[in-house]
């Protein structure tokens, strides 16, 4: 279905009529109109999840009023009135932020929310459960735990988006944590860094070191590939291999396959130079345009 076939849905938010497409989630639709509903576990590039509950709003439909998580609520044909910032909603968000602040006091995004919602710090209770997850703790793990809010963005990015499943949730309840399988360096990690990029709290660290890229606290370490153009180390090797294999799957007869593969190996700077040179040679790019590129 192309986008202009999509069904338009009209809803009312605090009395203002706005529209979105059927199937879109309410959170994105109302925030597009500037209603500033806060959220943590949602990410526009990832499947909806509904874990942090910060995006909870009040809705009225069929004469019934209820509180719903807006990130998992799909737009559909129905009379819908939305109130994103009622007193009840505000109080709920305050409690959620309070709980998160106790859990992850070092996360900047939570500290900012606490300021915005005027929430004060409470102490984090001891883990009183009978069994405690994770017997080994490293410094990296501890640092991670002070920030991680278990929103699951990293898990979804790695699993649902990329199909790598190098990390996942383990244990139930308050022992829930994100970990590579068996808490060992994850074989499946390609070093793409998606987890690092989607994490809202900075609980994941990614560093280039010597010939490798390290992602903590997963203990992931992948070798880097040397750019055939400039000799600099850039992408993780496994990433390039993956790009190669995807190119091969998408192989089309009229496509310059070798060309695509060798392009994928260049670092971003060299690739730009290469494209420019080619464009100039084939006159698809004229002098003067090079500044823009």
């Amino acid at each position, binding site marked *: 279905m192309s986008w202009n076939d999509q069904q338009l849905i009209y809803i009312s938010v605090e009395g203002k009529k706005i529209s979105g497409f059927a199937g879109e989630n309410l959170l994105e639709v109302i925030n597009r109109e500037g209603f500033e509903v806060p959220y943590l576990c949602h990410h526009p590039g990832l499947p909806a999840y509904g874990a942090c509950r910060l995006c909870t709003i009040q809705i009225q439909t069929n004469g019934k009023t209820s509180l719903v998580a807006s990130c998992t609520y799909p737009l559909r044909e129905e009379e819908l009135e939305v109130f994103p910032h009622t007193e009840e909603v505000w109080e709920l968000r305050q409690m959620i932020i309070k*709980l998160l602040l106790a859990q992850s006091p070092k996360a900047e995004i939570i500290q900012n929310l606490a300021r915005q919602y005027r929430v004060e710090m409470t102490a984090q209770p001891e883990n*009183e459960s009978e069994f405690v997850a994770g017997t080994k703790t490293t410094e990296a793990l501890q640092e991670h735990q002070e920030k991680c*809010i278990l929103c699951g963005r990293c898990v979804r990015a790695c699993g649902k988006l990329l199909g790598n499943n190098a990390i996942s949730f383990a244990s139930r*309840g*308050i022992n*829930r944590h994100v970990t590579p399988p068996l808490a060992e360096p994850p074989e499946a990690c390609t070093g793409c860094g998606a987890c690092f990029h989607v994490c809202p709290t900075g609980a994941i660290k990614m560093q280039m070191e010597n010939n490798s890229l390290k992602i903590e606290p997963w203990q992931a370490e992948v070798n880097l590939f040397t750019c055939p153009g400039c000799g600099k180390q850039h992408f993780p090797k496994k990433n390039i291999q993956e790009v190669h294999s995807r190119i091969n799957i998408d192989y089309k007869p009229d496509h310059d396959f070798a060309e695509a593969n060798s392009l994928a190996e260049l670092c971003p700077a060299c690739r730009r130079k290469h494209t420019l040179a080619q464009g100039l040679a084939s006159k698809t790019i004229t002098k003067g345009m090079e500044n823009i590129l």
Partner: protein
Amino acid sequence: MVKLKTPQELENLRASLQKQLKYSAKTISICYGSSCKASGAEEVITAIKNELEKNNLETNLERIIKETGCHGFCEQGPLVLIKPQNIFYCRVKPEDASRIVKKSIIKNEIIADLLFQDPQNENIFTTEEEIPFYKKQTRLLMQHNSDIDPRRLEDYLAQGGYSALNKVLTQNTPEEILEKVKSSGLRGRGGAGFPTGQKWESCRQAESEIKYLICNADEGDPGCFQDASLVEGNPHQVLEGMILGAYAVGITTGYIYIRYEYPVAVRNFREAIEQARDYGLLGENILDSGFSFDVQVKRGGGAFVCGESSALIASLEGRPGEPRDKYVRNTKKGLWGKPTLLNNVKTLASVPLIVEKGSDWFRQFGTSSSPGTMIFSLTGKIKHTGLVEIPMGISMHSLIWDIGGGIRNDKPLKAVQTGGPSGGCIPAANIDLPLDYEHLSNAGSMLGSGGMIVMDENTCMVDVARYFLSFTQQESCGKCVPCREGGKHLLHTLNKITRGEGQITDLTLIREISEAMQKGALCNLGRQAPNPVLTTLHYFENEYHRHIMDQKCPAGVCRHLISFYISTEDCTGCGKCMDVCPEEAIRGEKREPHHILQGECNRCGICQEVCPENAISKG
């Protein structure tokens, strides 16, 4: 076994089975439910079998002995019934086997000392029907549990089973069945009480070639085994309900999701499916009607939350058993994204009865908004524990006193927890509350899966709240913040109060966190987890205050808030307490009064139990 090809063939088979039953000699029905098994039913069965062999009755073994599902009066197990008279023997031991066979089977004698004697008035009862525990019940779902060997489809047929299906396939359209279930007013027995007919209709209306039916037999409430008693004890009734549901809604594939800890239920249901297929009652073209439906057994994920519908579906799909928001209902988009009808075991087991006897018949039981019966699991400080089926709307008082025999040791009742760990505590003052969906939820509790824990005056309500919350906390999947983090803080606060470290402001915190969980948690596990806390706080606030302000636990339960004392007058210095004290906290010379070093004492209370002079008191 011959495949039945037409409805007439089924009726012919039934007629011959019923004839056999009528002319067959006595049978011994032995409860093989989990509780009777735990108290030695297996040994009793072996002993009776041996005895039958000794008396050359072994050729008829299968006819004479029936290992059945739960009979309900678990506390009196192992239970043995002599049919057709229904002579009720309880607490049977293997040594009794020879008497049972020689006297009650070969001859017509009744063994007086095996009969049930009411401890209250010492009345002795011969048959099951006469015993007050059974007499006051209305057994619709559990009616045939003691007549049926769950591993024999023929037994179910002989009791009238599959006749609803048979009639429907020849005489009714799916719409007519749907209409019947709708007008019966049946509501979901899995906890939420959603109108079953409405759910079926919504699934029927969903546009899709493929739809699924799931029977929820995950039964995770601690102390509940109602669903087990049906799936284990009368699997064909559940299966028939599933087939009828599938027919009414237009479904060809079904699953039953059985709790991980129920291997017998899994075995019995698998066998039931195979037998039904062999007879042509399940599978392709059922009884030549053109309607096809088949069922597979799936074992549960081993977590309480897996019983929640969206978590169950995730688990069936092979994903972690975590709930999701259900703004789009399962009846529109469920298993593998297809319209899915999910019902509890008891809901589905009610369907054959409704279809066979009509919705008016069903509506004569229960109340107008909660028709039918409910099975409760009576536990706690009550005289008679077990499974009890009663019409909805009966008062809690009647259930506890008329059927349950009252409070153990005739102590005063303090409160009743209904609906399992997600339910609430109802105080003794509200004992006349009718047991139905509305009344219980208005009281801050719920009907839930029918758990009922009776508590006497020796129960500390703060401790009760703490106990149930620690269960839901352990079982929380941890996905959403209100349940995972809110539950953690709530439990921590309650722990503090039971240790005497609470502050009066903690009560405000408890209410605030609870409200956030009720309003914000993703699934009902988190939304309902505060119920025990809020109800105890509502009805027994004073008890919370005593813990906080006076550092006293009025019921003498919270260990940090009690002390043990030895009375110098009564103590003879025998030294028994000294020997058992795990902390070596008791001092004293032989034959001189002893005393307890309070600083060392961990308040386990063993000393009080062993003291022959009753010289140790708690305060």
